[in-house]
């Protein structure tokens, strides 16, 4: 049985279709990523899974329980970290944790050992007397995660947990997620950062209320059917203008000091040399570029 089973789920606000009929299964123990830009419908889907919103159509089941039927049952086994969740800034780390422990009725006997476990990965113990508002962005995220984990949930739902956090803290946060997953917890995480897709077991690419693809990040990139090259040139603007005119070209995109071009088919070495000549040596070098999830995404939303 899948931990989360979504069948033809629809939800709209007024005339806006936030989520427009999606099907999705999240397996037990996997780290599943919902990848998509702001406004794609990620938050709506997550809130519905957490029983905070009701589906307009279709059904969502969490561990076999319907989100409209068994609300207390679902809430008891779910850990949820809302988007831009900022905790109680004026309470200390310890007070925040204790508050959520009270709220989720973590028995006093287990509490100390649970806090120790959480401190182990969050490394927040030395700061437990500090007000949450005085923590760095990365530490705040870890505290928020700890609060969501306090009652040892079976499924963890995280809505853009790495928003606005610096890259080092982001990396550390993902390492923590991997260790939680290793303990058997199912994790559903959303992000607007395409590069985080590679850190998930499986991902759904989400755009304007629809799922464009579901697979492992590796398979998604492997199936990208337009050979991609990275070019170096003396004048990138002219080089880009040149390739925009070539027949069989799929996309051209400047990236700082290089140009990415993709074609409908693979290009031979002799073809490249011909282009080098034709550009009067403006094209300096070319090499195959691995497509990123962003390339895949871009292609799917076209």
């Amino acid at each position: 049985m899948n931990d989360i089973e979504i069948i033809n789920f629809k939800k709209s606000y007024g005339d806006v279709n936030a989520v427009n009929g999606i099907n999705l299964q999240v397996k037990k123990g996997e780290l599943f990523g919902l990848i998509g830009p702001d406004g794609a419908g990620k938050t709506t889907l997550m809130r519905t899974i957490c029983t905070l919103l009701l589906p307009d159509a279709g059904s969502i089941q969490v561990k076999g329980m319907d989100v409209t039927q068994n609300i207390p049952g679902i809430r008891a086994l779910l850990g949820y970290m809302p988007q831009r969740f900022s905790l109680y800034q004026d309470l200390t780390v310890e007070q925040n944790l204790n508050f959520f422990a009270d709220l989720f009725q973590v028995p006093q006997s287990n509490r100390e050992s649970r806090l120790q476990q959480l401190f182990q990965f969050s490394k927040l113990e030395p700061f437990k007397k500090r007000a949450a508002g005085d923590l760095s962005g990365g530490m705040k995220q870890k505290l928020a995660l700890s609060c969501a984990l306090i009652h040892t949930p079976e499924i963890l739902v995280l809505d853009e947990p790495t928003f606005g956090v610096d890259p080092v803290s982001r990396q550390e946060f993902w390492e923590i997620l991997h260790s939680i997953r290793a303990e058997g917890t199912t994790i559903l995480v959303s992000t607007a950062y395409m590069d985080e897709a590679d850190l998930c077991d499986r991902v759904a690419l989400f755009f304007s209320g629809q799922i464009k693809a579901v697979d492992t990040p590796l398979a998604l990139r492997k199936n990208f059917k337009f050979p991609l090259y990275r070019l170096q040139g003396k004048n990138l603007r002219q080089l880009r203008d040149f390739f925009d005119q070539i027949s069989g070209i799929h996309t051209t995109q400047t990236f700082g000091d290089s140009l990415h071009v993709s074609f409908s088919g693979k290009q031979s070495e002799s073809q490249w040399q011909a282009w080098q000549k034709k550009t009067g040596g403006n094209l300096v070098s070319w090499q195959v570029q691995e497509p990123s999830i962003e390339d895949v995404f871009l292609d799917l939303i076209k």
Partner: protein
Amino acid sequence: MTKASRTIAIARKEFLHIIHDPRSLIIIFVMPLMQLILFGYALNMEIQNINLAVIDYSRTPQSSHLIEQFEGSEFFSVFHYNGKHSDIENIFLKREAKIILVIDQDFARNFQRQTKTSIQILVDAADPNAATIIKNYCYGIIANFNLEHGGQISQPFDVEPRIWYNPDMKSAYFFVPGLIALILVMISAMLTSLAITREKETGTLEQILVSPIKPIEIIIGKVFPYIIMAFLDGFLILMMGMILFKVPFAGSHFLLILLSTLYIITALSLGLMISATVETQQVAMMMAISATLLPTVMLSGFIFPIRSMPILLQYVSYIVPAKYFLIIARGILIKGNTFFQLGFQTLALTLMSIILLIRTLRKFSLNLEK
């Protein structure tokens, strides 16, 4: 663990928020004291249609003529009181009239003899500003009466008004109960609605909602600290009023506490209702001001007597909880009213609380659906 533990968790956290924010704490306790001192100044008021009870022992054309003068004025609506003289006090306690005109038996005789005659005017000065104005209207009418009969009377009669309940006409008597009404409604309604909408804004409410908590647990946990604050504040104003302005405490302490609790519950229900409806602190603040601060100051009889308002606003005043609490607080503190004399006000507040609470509990859902 029981349900109570979750409620306590919420209440404890709310107390921590209050303690962690010394600035608000100062505002909560210093603002009322500032207002108490500021409201020591009297304000100008216009009054109309004041009930005037006439006790005419003279029953002569002369006395009727004097009464006609009062009837002819737009300020008074006159009725004849037929009860026993010893029950006069009840006229005020039951709020049947603000002013009583007693004309002595020998009024006409003295008048004809052109010797000094006197009438008695009793003014309910629980509301001292109104009392002063009423007194001045009376002087005006009587002076006219003298002028009209000037050809016949060489010596005008003298007026010696006796003012009951608030003989020194101290404004503080009048303002202290009003200020308690204002502060209680502000703390109960405004602060609670802000406290809940703040959690909506920061996203923490979402996190609380996904826990196994029930709406009633959130509500009780949230409001409890503010009930305590409201009581402390009410007590503080009363104490200061009694020390600085010698406000009396004529009635029952227990009754005042009981009915204050009822009023606080009404105000809290209003605050909860607001917070269940709006999403941001800014909107909550504006709604709380228009639903509590403005009506309490303008429409409760706190500053402007309800009787001198346009008829429409007089009707509106019936849904202002402070209107009832004001009568309760003034009644208990100054007049020593008993529970039965305040039955109507108690009933009104109880009804309001029930309606508001039912609406709030219906609106306060455990999800984010509108």
